[in-house]
Structures are given as C-alpha cells and as structure tokens.
C-alpha cells in the first residue's frame, strides 16, 4: 500500500486518503473490470461503482488485508453482481462452469469491437471464465503474473497454471479451426 495512503488512513483522514486512492488504483480497477465484463462502458461503470463503495467503506477499512487486495475484491464483487443482474439465473460462482462461461460471453455487448477481430479471441470466449479473465488481464497488465494474481486474488502458482492451460488449449483449438477456415 502506498505509504502516504496508509498514514492518512491511520490518521482517520479518509477523504484525503481517498483522493490518493483513486489515481493510484483507477486504471487497474478498470482493467480488472474489463477483463470480467468485457465491455468498455460496463467496465467503466463498474469502476465508478467500485470507488463509490470504497469511499463509503474506507472508514471501516481495518488494514488486515492490503488496500489493493481489498479494492480488487470489491471490484470483483461489483462485476459479479453486474453479471448476475444481467443473467440472474446463471451461477457465476463456479469459475469452471461452462454455462457461466458461455453466459458471460453472450451477455457482453459484443466481441467485435475491433473489425479485425482475431479468431483467437473468439476461441478465447469458449474457455472457462476464470481462464478468460486471467488471459485478458495478463495481457492488459503487460504480461505481469504478479498483477494478475493480486487483482484476481489468487496465488501466483494458480495464475501461472491457469494461463498455461488457457494458452495451451488455445493452441489446440486454433489449428483445426484455422485449417477448417482455410
């Protein structure tokens, strides 16, 4: 945690601390939300909602967890609530649920944000949700395993394993699909 933020929180100066929290975390919160929601506008809304919740709860933050860990947990919860709001009958609790994966893919506003949308991204949509999130976040965070682990609240080894399995699976899926396309 930023030492300045920590000192301000310890002194009970929550508003001043919050002023430092926003610029320190807004980009990562947004990228995390984007990796889960896969929609720019929804991710920005979720980031706003996250910081509102952080602002409300900051006086109760007890420092037992790192501030970043706490903020990313709020971000993930905010995003999962948004996914549930859109499709309340689907359980997103099971990260390997194929149904959740497909539902998450189908409720996104659309994958073709880039007209040259790579076929690999369509294959990525078929992977389990936790693998998709890890892959998106990994590249958004300039291939930082540590950043992904921190933001997804997972051990580093789990993140490495997830990413390895995801990219290996994409290799397996890509060749037949592209041969068929050719």
């Amino acid at each position, binding site marked *: 945690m930023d030492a300045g933020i920590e000192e301000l929180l310890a002194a009970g100066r929550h508003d001043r601390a919050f002023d430092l929290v926003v610029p320190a975390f807004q980009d990562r919160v*947004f990228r995390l939300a*984007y990796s889960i929601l896969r929609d720019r506008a929804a991710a*920005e809304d979720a980031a*706003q909602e996250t910081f509102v919740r952080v602002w409300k709860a900051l006086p*109760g933050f007890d420092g037992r967890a790192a501030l970043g860990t706490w903020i990313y947990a709020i971000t993930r919860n905010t995003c999962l609530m948004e996914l549930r709001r859109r499709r309340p009958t689907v359980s997103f609790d099971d990260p390997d649920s194929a149904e959740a994966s497909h539902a998450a893919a189908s409720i996104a506003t659309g994958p073709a944000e880039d007209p040259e949308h790579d076929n*690999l991204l369509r294959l990525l949509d078929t992977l389990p949700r936790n693998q998709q999130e890890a892959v998106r976040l990994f590249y958004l965070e300039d291939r930082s395993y540590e950043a992904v682990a921190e933001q997804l609240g997972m051990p580093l080894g789990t993140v490495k394993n997830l990413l390895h399995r995801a990219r290996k699976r994409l290799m397996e899926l890509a060749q037949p699909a592209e041969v068929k396309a050719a």
Partner: protein
Amino acid sequence: MNNLNPLPPCADYEFEIVELGEGSLAPEKARTVRAHLESCARCRNWLSGFAEVDARLAAALPRHVLSADFASRLHARLGSESRRTPRNDLRTAADEEYRRTLEALRLGARRNAILAGLAAGVVAIGGLVLAPNLLPDAGSLLASLTAQQRLIGCGALGGVIALAGLAWSTMLGQLPTLRSFG
C-alpha cells in the same frame, strides 16, 4: 497459424519452455532447457506455436483506457452519495442496542436498590414496632432508650439487613432484588 503443433511438448519441460520464452527462467535451468530444445524438434515447434499464440493475444486484445473525465464524474457522483454504509448502519444499530441495554440495566439496578432500601426500612421499623409485643423483655429495654438511640438502632438494623441482602445477591451472582429473598 502455421506454427501451431497439436503435439504436446515433453512433459518434463512444458512449463520451463514457457518460462524460457518469457525470460523468467533461472540461468542454470535456462541452459538445460536450451540444450533440450536443440535436440527436440517437438518442443521447438510447440514453443514456436506458444509464442505465436502469445503474440497474437497481445496484439488482438483491446487495450482500453478510462475516459478522461472518469475522476470528475466520480467526484460528482460522490457529492450526492451518503457515506452511511450498510456496515455502518449495522454498527450504529448495535451501538444503539448496547446503549439501550446499559440504560435498562442501570434503571433496573436503581429501582431494585430503592426497593431493597424500602424493604429494609419496613422490616426494621416493623421489627421495632412489634418487638415490645413479641419480646416483652425487650420492651422494657427499648423503653429505656432515647429516641436518638432508637433511631441509631433502627439504622443499624436496616444496614445489617441491606448488607445481608448484598451478600446474598453476590453469592447468587446478580443484583439485589426482592426476588433474591423470595
């Protein structure tokens, strides 16, 4: 995606090949893995395919950034928000319940103390009034006392009864009440 090879790499080197490609492998292990790659076409092809997937994902995944007005919109929204969170509401309710409980206990203790004092006074006065009839010998003794001596005796008797009540209630582990003596 011509480099993709569906054949998996040698199991012993699978993770280390990826780490070598990402430049995160320790130098000692890197030498071993490089030596293996020189002699294993299957692992070389797999690494090539993995690197292609990695590069294509990095290029294809959109890298959105937050709107320039994100912070100003957030602060505008916070201006209309109340900082009372559900957690704070709960805490306030618990504090209020605790305060009410303490107040009730205080009132109960005061009422019981008054009742106990009144009871002690009634018993003492009653004893003094009835003593000449119940104990004829004591009647002459009392008759010989002055009003001041009777008052002191009455107070002493009341005090003894009150102390006995306190001792009794302490033994029972509760505040003195009339029921304690029942």
